[in-house]
Structure formats: structure tokens, C-alpha cells
């Protein structure tokens, strides 16, 4: 038996994303952000997108390429403080922003990837994040229903991969990538290093290739993946 080859070009993988799609994007700051896939999304002029991402990167990079050019309708996120442009877009009503507690965003994504409809939590119950959320009582405790998140597409950045889509990550470039790689109808992963089948030992695999639809080897590691000098 042999596992299938899912390698493809970024142009081809991204071409199948329709306008209006909901797109999960890995990354926390620079580490783990799939800058090359995001640039391809902008190049192909995809519009009316809903993005799910921990942060909004910094002005001029990553998801800001999509926000600044008016391609994003809605953003589900935890913190956009490093992107003044995204804050301005939110304040001027050009994008709709839903804020989520960071770990609850991770759990909503994880639930989506695990085939569960929601998680129950007391996180944020005494804050404005609880506004409009359904409350249920479980074993005498009042808890908030946080609905699971799934997306049409997830854009993932991995360090190493094999052609079947088995993925391994580096350091704090994990963050939202492993849960998001399980929570979308179509999962597109870019990888810095493409190893042959068997090149990633089964014990090293963090995201099983079963979850991944398209594997895009990166031609180069561009400057935006590098150390940020502020």
C-alpha cells in the first residue's frame, strides 16, 4: 500500500477558494502565519472573506494585505493591537470584528475539528464578551455556550511535511495551526521543508495527513517570516 501525494502549487490550491469563504489562518504574530498562502489569496483577489485568526498581524503584512484592500468582511479574533490599520477598519465599520478570549477561540476551533457542536465555559461570564451568549445550567453551575467554529478553508504553516500532508511544527509557530488544521472542509498547508514519504517518522507527526487536503511546498522563506526589528 502507498499513501497518496497531495502536493500542489499554492496558486492551484488557493484557486478553489470561493469569494465569501470563511478562512481560518494559523499564526500568533509572525511565527506560524502562512504569509505565502495569504499573499496568494490577495493576488487572486478573493473577496468578502470571513477570517478566523488569533491576531491581525502587523500593518502591511499577513492578513493585513487582505484587510487593507477591503477583502475582509468579518474577523473573528482575540487581539488586534499590533495592527493600527485593522483597528481603524473596525472603528470605521469597514470590517466587523468578533472578539473571543484566546483559549476559548482555540477550544471553539478544537471542538469544530473534533466534530463537537459547542463547548461550555465560565470564561468571560462577568465580562462584555458574554453579551448575547446562551447560558445553560450543568450540575448546578451556570455556563456559557461557545459554539464550535469550522471554516471552509484553513491555511496552515508547517515546518516539515511529507507529500501525504503529515505535518510537524517549530517552537511557538504551533499556536493555532494544529487545531485549525483539523477544523476546515479544505485544509491547505504550506511547508518550509518537504520530506519524502517516510521522511517524517510516525512519532514526529503532529498533524496527521488525514486532515490535510493540499500540501504546498514553499519555494523560499521570504523576509516577512524573519525576525521583526521594531
Amino acid at each position, binding site marked *: 500500500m502507498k499513501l497518496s501525494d497531495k502536493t500542489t502549487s499554492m496558486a492551484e490550491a488557493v484557486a478553489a477558494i470561493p469569494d465569501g469563504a470563511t478562512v481560518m489562518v494559523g499564526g500568533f504574530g509572525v511565527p506560524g502565519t502562512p504569509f505565502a498562502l495569504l499573499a496568494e489569496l490577495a493576488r487572486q483577489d478573493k473577496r468578502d472573506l470571513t477570517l478566523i485568526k488569533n491576531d491581525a498581524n502587523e500593518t502591511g503584512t499577513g492578513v493585513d494585505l487582505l484587510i487593507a484592500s477591503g477583502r475582509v468582511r468579518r474577523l473573528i479574533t482575540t487581539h488586534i493591537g499590533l495592527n493600527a490599520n485593522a483597528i481603524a477598519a473596525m472603528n470605521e465599520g469597514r470590517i466587523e470584528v468578533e472578539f473571543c*478570549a*484566546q483559549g476559548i*477561540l*482555540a477550544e471553539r476551533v478544537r471542538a469544530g475539528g473534533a466534530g463537537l457542536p459547542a463547548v461550555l465555559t465560565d470564561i468571560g461570564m462577568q465580562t462584555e464578551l458574554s453579551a448575547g451568549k446562551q447560558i445553560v445550567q450543568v450540575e448546578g453551575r451556570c455556563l456559557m455556550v461557545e459554539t464550535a467554529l469550522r471554516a471552509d478553508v484553513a491555511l496552515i504553516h508547517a515546518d516539515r511535511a511529507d507529500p501525504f500532508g503529515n505535518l510537524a511544527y517549530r517552537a511557538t509557530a504551533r499556536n493555532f495551526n494544529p487545531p485549525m488544521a483539523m477544523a476546515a472542509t479544505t485544509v491547505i498547508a504550506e511547508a518550509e521543508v518537504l520530506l519524502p514519504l517516510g521522511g517524517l517518522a510516525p512519532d514526529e507527526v503532529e498533524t496527521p495527513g488525514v486532515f490535510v487536503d493540499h500540501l504546498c511546498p514553499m519555494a523560499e522563506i521570504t523576509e516577512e517570516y524573519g525576525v521583526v526589528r521594531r
Partner: protein
Amino acid sequence: MSADKIVPLKPADPRGRMVARAAREIAPGMVVNLGIGLPTQVVDHLGPDYPVCLHTENGMAGVGPTLPHELADRNLIDAGGAYVSPIPGSSYFDSATSFALVRSGRLDLTMLGAFEVAENGDLANWKIPGRFSPGAGGAIELAQKARRVVVMTTHCDRKGNPKLKRRCTLPLTAAGAVTRIFTDLAVIDVTPAGFTLRECAQGVSVAEVTEATGAPLRLPEGDIPTF
């Protein structure tokens, strides 16, 4: 935050004394999350062999020293964006695991900044409506679920208004969460009876602390130690 711009504060100045005093809150063996900004600087007051596990919510336990840009690993930052390093025994994990650790009670202590702290322990540190609303990031879970939540902040804001109040006026991060506050003027505990003065900074009188506090300040019997 730029790693190479962090200059250890000297204990001679009031802020430096506050940071040095807050560092003593960290007991050996604790798992600790330090909030972005001033709390990060308590690290400079812990010896290189001090047994503590620093957690950063973007996915690392055992956070080591910050590195200058030329030595930085592009894939290794803390939640404030500073380039950090591993130490023997460090681990990396995804965001779901990182907050599982927080919510399930594995985080012994978090030290956070504040816009306002109320005498009942309410904390506001993430939003100023109309002026500052970047989102709460991981602050809500840290403040709500760390086993002990302490605040490090200047006693008053830049205009001289007290940050310690009867009630928070800004949107809450967590209710009833804070147990101790380290400021440039004092160490104050949040007790069922409200704010209680524990220590004064060198050269600061009890009257000055009381004056700068926007809620009644209980004074315990006996002398108030200085730090």
C-alpha cells in the same frame, strides 16, 4: 516589544523597587505567567538558577532569557512578541494546550498590569471604550483562572488619578480576581474588608498612600514595613 530595548530597572528608582518587590512574590517551583510590559521585568530580579517555570500563552513552558535580534530564532517569541530562548526542560505546545494549562489550575501565579483595580478584586485591563479596544487576548483566562492573580501597576495614572478604586468604571477583565497589588507606593492586599495596606515604598508615608488610593485603605495594627 523589542527584546534589546529592555533595560533592567534599578532598584533605586520607585518603579525598580516595585518590580524587585513583586519578584519576591514568586516562590520556588511555581508555574508563572507574566503579563506584557512591566511584569515581564521581574525576571531580571530572579537569579539564573532560581527554580521557576515561566509560561507564555502562545505556547511555551520554561521560557528562558530574551535574545537580541541577531541571536533570535524567528519561530520563538513570547506573547508580547519578544524573542525568547529555551532552557533545559522547556516545552512547546499549541494554543489549546496552553490555555488548558491555565483553565485547569496548573498556573500558580499570574502578574498582570491594570487600568483599574476595585476593592472587591475586580480587574479592568483590556479596554477603554472609544480609545483603546484591541481585544483581550488571553487576559480574561489568565485573570479568571490563575490560582493567584496579582497586579503590578503605578499607583496612579498619568494624570494622577487613582487606579485603585471602590468600583471599576472600565469594562472588566475578571471579577473578584485580584488578591494583591504591587505599586510604586505600596503593597496592598485585597481582603473581604477591602484594600489593606501591607508595605510602603521607601520614603512614602502611610498618609501619602491613603491619599493616592481611591477607596478606603485599611491599616493593620503595628508598624508598616517598607520595601
